[in-house]
């Protein structure tokens, strides 16, 4: 919440007409009264991480480092490592295959200039993620996996398909749909994220 918004909220409270439940709705669940001031609680976790970025590997790397800064080091380090890996795989797939530039993902090569929208929200059972892009439809079969599993040596020689293998293994509730010329990929990265006592909502 921005400072001007906070000021409006205080002004609203000063009028003395705001019922408590209305106050909660106006500012989001988790607001609390502290003396005469209405303060937003620190939320039920962390603010959502949201970025709009070009589909190139440098921007993706920078975004993942920003995400680490946002959530770490308080959050479960293992869950953070898993979400970073899965998001790298998902977004680099867009940079490499969605753009048509291939594995080099070289922006100098001819290809589609795509935009990725990323949202990550921490909650007490993990990290909920949504990644959208304006590239061509995701090929069928990516989410389901291969019907016949390759031997490790065959997979090593082919040296492809590992990204989706990682995505399928580390995610829960993975689903994809097309909306408004965009791919939308949603999933949860499981983890028992410990909320600090002061971050718990204290309004009954």
């Amino acid at each position, binding site marked *: 919440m921005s400072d001007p918004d906070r000021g409006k909220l205080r002004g609203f409270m000063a009028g003395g007409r705001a019922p408590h439940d209305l106050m909660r709705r106006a500012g989001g669940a988790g607001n609390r009264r502290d003396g005469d001031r209405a303060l937003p609680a620190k939320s039920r976790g962390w603010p959502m991480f949201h970025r709009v970025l070009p589909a190139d590997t440098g921007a*993706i*790397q920078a975004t993942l480092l920003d995400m680490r800064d946002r959530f770490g080091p308080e959050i479960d380090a293992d869950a953070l490592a898993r979400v970073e890996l899965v998001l790298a795989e998902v977004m680099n797939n867009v940079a490499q295959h969605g753009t048509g530039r291939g*594995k080099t993902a070289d922006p100098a090569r001819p290809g589609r200039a795509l935009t990725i929208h990323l949202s990550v929200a921490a909650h007490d059972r993990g990290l909920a993620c949504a990644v959208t892009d304006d590239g061509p439809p995701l090929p069928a079969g990516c989410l389901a996996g291969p019907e016949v599993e390759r031997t490790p040596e065959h997979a090593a*020689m082919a040296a492809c398909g590992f990204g989706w*293998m*990682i995505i399928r293994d580390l995610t829960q509730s993975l689903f994809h749909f097309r909306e408004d010329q965009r791919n939308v990929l949603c999933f949860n990265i499981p983890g028992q994220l410990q909320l600090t006592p002061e971050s718990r909502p204290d309004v009954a």
Partner: protein
Amino acid sequence: MPLMTEEMACGVRVCVLENRLDAALAIRFKDRLREIAARNGPVILLDLSRVDFMDSSGLGAILAIRRTLPPDRRIELTGLTPNVERVLRLTRMDMVFVIHPPIGPEQPEPTARVQEGAP
């Protein structure tokens, strides 16, 4: 792409000095590793102890070099951090590579040390 090489009796140790081996670096890493693999051997011991993030692009770069090696040369791995180990396990590439425990201080001094590449 900074890599450090150390000659060993059986070949060369290649220490990756970057802490991320991802899609943004994979092509440069592959090119440097290819050069080193072309003039060293038979073992190219890839030391990943400083790499705390590797995705499938980094793994793909290692596999691309492995695929082009002549039969008398091989890539082996050491110093896997938990995140690198996870990628190898999920992709089952831990069954393809010989993986050594981290190189400790008890190891003999390398015979030569060469800094490769610019940071």
